[in-house]
């Protein structure tokens, strides 16, 4: 199972790096970092919530690969601390923390919906 964790974490980290580089190519430095942080953290939280209940992702290896590995590796808290250290604590960062909770909740409910739909059929 550690192999799946490693693979998921590696894929998530590589995807995050590519997202950061792509954002930096399109926007000014601080703005790009904020957009990239928001994108990876909100989509990663949503995906972790979805993977917690989505019927096709409930096997142990899937949870390790996609939930713990990929979603965990794709999102970053160290990037937020570095951003706050350099730019100061701002309302978009505070908003991101609460939006992450909301994103996870939306993904979780969507996963539950798919699970119920599959149980009915």
């Amino acid at each position, binding site marked *: 199972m550690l192999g799946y964790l490693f693979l998921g974490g590696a894929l*998530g980290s590589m995807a995050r790096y590519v997202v950061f580089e792509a954002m930096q190519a399109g926007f000014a430095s601080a703005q790009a970092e904020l957009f990239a942080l928001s994108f990876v953290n909100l989509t990663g939280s949503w995906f972790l919530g979805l993977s917690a209940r989505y019927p096709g992702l409930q096997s142990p290896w899937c949870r390790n690969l996609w939930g713990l590995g990929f979603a965990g590796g794709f999102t970053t808290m*160290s990037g937020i601390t570095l951003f706050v250290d350099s730019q100061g604590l701002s309302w978009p960062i505070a908003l991101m923390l609460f939006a992450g909770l909301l994103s996870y909740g939306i993904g979780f409910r969507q996963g539950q919906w798919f699970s119920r739909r599959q149980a009915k059929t």
Partner: protein
Amino acid sequence: MVFKKTGQNLSINFFTVLLVGLAGGLGSVARVQLTKWGGALPFGVILTNTIAAALLGWLLSLPSIPFETFTALSMGLAGGLSTFSAVSKSAFNFYHRGRLTQALLTLLTNLLIPLTALIVVARFA
């Protein structure tokens, strides 16, 4: 494989992406082992985020470091070790059970404790 970006003269080197992936995989395995520590707050998640921030602080304090090494350790190891999604999950689970104070503390401690670690290590390392 190198993607050249003409606007800011940045490039994504395939070797650097692989290094980030390797370090990120190692960081993720370490993260999952450490985040098993729970309790009134997700202490394991706070610990991993704090270690990752301290690592970043240490990297920032170094006078010179090769670009690939810095990217692999900051984007890969520290990025893979730290997690935002587990913070969101823990906060949501507390909120879902009506424990609003613990949900708020989860969000706050996961920002403020790692930030303090980064500042302290970067300034005094």
